[in-house]
């Protein structure tokens, strides 16, 4: 599998892309939606290489930690600082997002409470099993790649009658913000790179509307450098043919129909709801919440929390515009100055997939 990172392969793909982009009219602006794509593109130095080949990649709202509003983070912080004997479990990057009340990492827990960084929702379940005397709240933020595993954790908790486990949900769907972005007409892009692992769950038909209603092509991409370039080339090909559509360029992992088992589980445990996104605002039917049957595992309900997103960012932070692909991180005045990885002003500088952190870490300035 080394070919996926081999420089001769990359060079060959770039030559092809260069020829295509020249005919299409450079620079061709494409948007990658997934934060892990942004990371791959910058980590391997592909952004400047693509620019040189006539393709400008803009990053979109694909970082679940970045688009989770302040209110959710503050709810989590409130739980661990004000409730005794409570374990707040979360993925690592979410614990470092700064809010007007500090971050989860810097919060001072109430007596016998703590923040636990977990790799999987299963770790949080295990903590709940091992410590029946503590409340364990899993602050679960994710897109459709992660949501099935969060749903499964809740279902298992229900099956095992675990009274001390609950979920603070920040669950987001990928297709609705694409529609919101395209409707806003803020971004001028000519095609999309669709997230490979999200699509492995939801299937390729989820993006048909982009082609059918907005006339834009897109390709599902994997996460190796060659995968990104194969997908870019595929989108350019459609642009040249004037044929919007969705191509699957990650066929070794993505089946057209997605993963029916994972989707069935999501369907069983969760239902679609309206949601407010950081930076993008209100998007109808773009989030998920626990179904009535599982309401007992909803942490906001259990602890009487109001999680209402209001105006979120710390002053000067343009994370919202970065998430919408309107500006690239260096265009924000705070970038690299008062907003740096060690002193972040917004979530885009905290999450390993946040565009600002990725740019700062990986781009040769």
């Amino acid at each position: 599998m080394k070919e996926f990172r081999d420089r001769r392969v990359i060079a060959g793909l770039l030559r092809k892309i260069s020829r295509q982009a020249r005919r299409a009219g450079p620079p061709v602006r494409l948007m990658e939606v997934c934060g892990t794509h942004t990371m791959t593109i910058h980590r391997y130095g592909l952004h400047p290489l693509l620019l040189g080949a006539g393709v400008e990649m803009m990053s979109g709202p694909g970082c679940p930690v970045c688009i989770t509003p302040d209110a959710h983070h503050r709810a989590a912080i409130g739980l661990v600082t004000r409730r005794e004997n409570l374990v707040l479990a979360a993925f690592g990057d979410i614990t470092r997002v700064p809010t007007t009340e500090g971050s989860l990492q810097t919060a001072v827990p109430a007596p016998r409470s703590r923040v636990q960084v977990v790799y999987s929702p299963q770790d949080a379940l295990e903590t709940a099993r091992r410590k029946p005397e503590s409340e364990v709240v899993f602050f679960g933020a994710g897109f459709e790649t992660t949501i099935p595993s969060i749903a499964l954790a809740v279902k298992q908790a229900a099956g095992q009658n675990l009274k001390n486990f609950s979920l603070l949900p920040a669950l987001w769907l990928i297709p609705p913000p694409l529609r919101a972005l395209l409707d806003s007409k803020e971004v001028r892009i000519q095609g999309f790179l669709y997230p490979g692992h999200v699509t492995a769950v939801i299937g390729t038909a989820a993006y048909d509307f982009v082609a059918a209603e907005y006339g834009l092509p897109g390709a599902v991409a994997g996460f190796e450098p060659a995968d990104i370039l194969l997908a870019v080339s595929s989108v350019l090909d459609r642009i040249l043919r004037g044929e919007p559509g969705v191509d699957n360029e990650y066929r070794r992992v993505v089946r057209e129909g997605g993963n029916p088992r994972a989707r069935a589980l999501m369907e069983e445990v969760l239902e679609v709801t309206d949601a407010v996104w950081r930076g993008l605002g209100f998007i109808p039917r773009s989030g998920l919440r626990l179904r009535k049957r599982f309401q007992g595992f909803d942490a906001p309900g259990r602890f009487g929390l109001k999680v209402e997103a209001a105006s979120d960012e710390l002053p000067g932070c343009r994370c919202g515009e970065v998430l919408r692909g309107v500006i690239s991180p260096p265009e924000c005045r705070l970038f690299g100055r008062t907003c740096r990885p060690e002193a972040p002003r917004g979530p885009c500088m905290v999450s390993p997939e946040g565009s600002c952190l990725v740019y700062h870490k990986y781009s040769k300035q």
Partner: protein
Amino acid sequence: MSARPKSEARSAKRTRPPGAAQAPADPGGRISLELGSGGRLMREFLRTHILGSFRSPLLRNLPDAAHLPRETALTTDGYVVDPIFFPGGDIGSLCVNGTVNDLVVSGAVPEHLSVSMILEEGLPEKDLARVLASIARAAAGAGVQVATGDTKVVRRGQADKLFIVTSGVGRVVARPETRRIRPGDAVIVTGTLGEHSLAVLLARGDFNLRSAVKSDCAPLGFLLPLWKQGVLWMRDVTRGGLATNLCELAEKLPYSILVEEERIPLSRPVRGACELLGIDPLYLACEGRAVMVVPEKKAGAVLHALVRHPQGRKAAVIGRIERKAGRPGELLLATQAGGLRKLEPLTSELLPRIC
């Protein structure tokens, strides 16, 4: 002091915009975990608080070991690793080798150590015995004597099992000469990277991972003869990993440093665990590996000497000092895929209490 120097003259020229030297991340004016990470925040803290409080000229460049009068070198270190026992080592072998290595890379033959221990009430005696035996074994292996020490006990909960503070004294036999570094000079690492950090991280049991990774904790005394073979600069690759340590060298030079991703030696288990956990091995601390700069003409002989030694079998030339790539003071990575990117020093702690 096991700290990373930042040349102040150079930093005055290459300033970030005003307001960039901020207080530590925690707005409450308290010590944050980031300060111990070995990254940018820690260095700013050192400049403000340490250099601001102590006036000795010996401290000015925040060296790993101070070269005192009469060819004596002195270093000190604190050890708070969690857990205290891990595959490939423990806090005992760590405190000896870490101290010894600070002396070796500053050009001194390690001779004596002091070991000061802070014990938590309730620590099992057999654990303490195991650590002490480990210290004794490591000291013998490194050819140093534990000459003096101290023990304190604090109440349960006021220390986490066991903390150790050491100092080490050695005899100066060489001095790093960063001023003689020139474009074309080779950057060499003495072995595979990242093993110590990963071994400690996995030993915490937070992840449901099983791996064969063992800490690389070991004494670097075998590198001492290389000073006479022309080595210009050496650093043990601890906190902040290869990238942070090379960034700090780069900042002192009127050149850039270019490292080739493909040449960096990484063992298969480290590669695997890092990809799984989403960790960048270039920022992982080792405790038995060094990175060095050697004049172009002498690199072949130095590498040859390294690979012939059991501890240096995987040594490799990973890059060079550059004049034409990037800007002076930068550390650049030529990626596997043929791209080029700038490496920044570690900013906030990836993994707390690794050493």
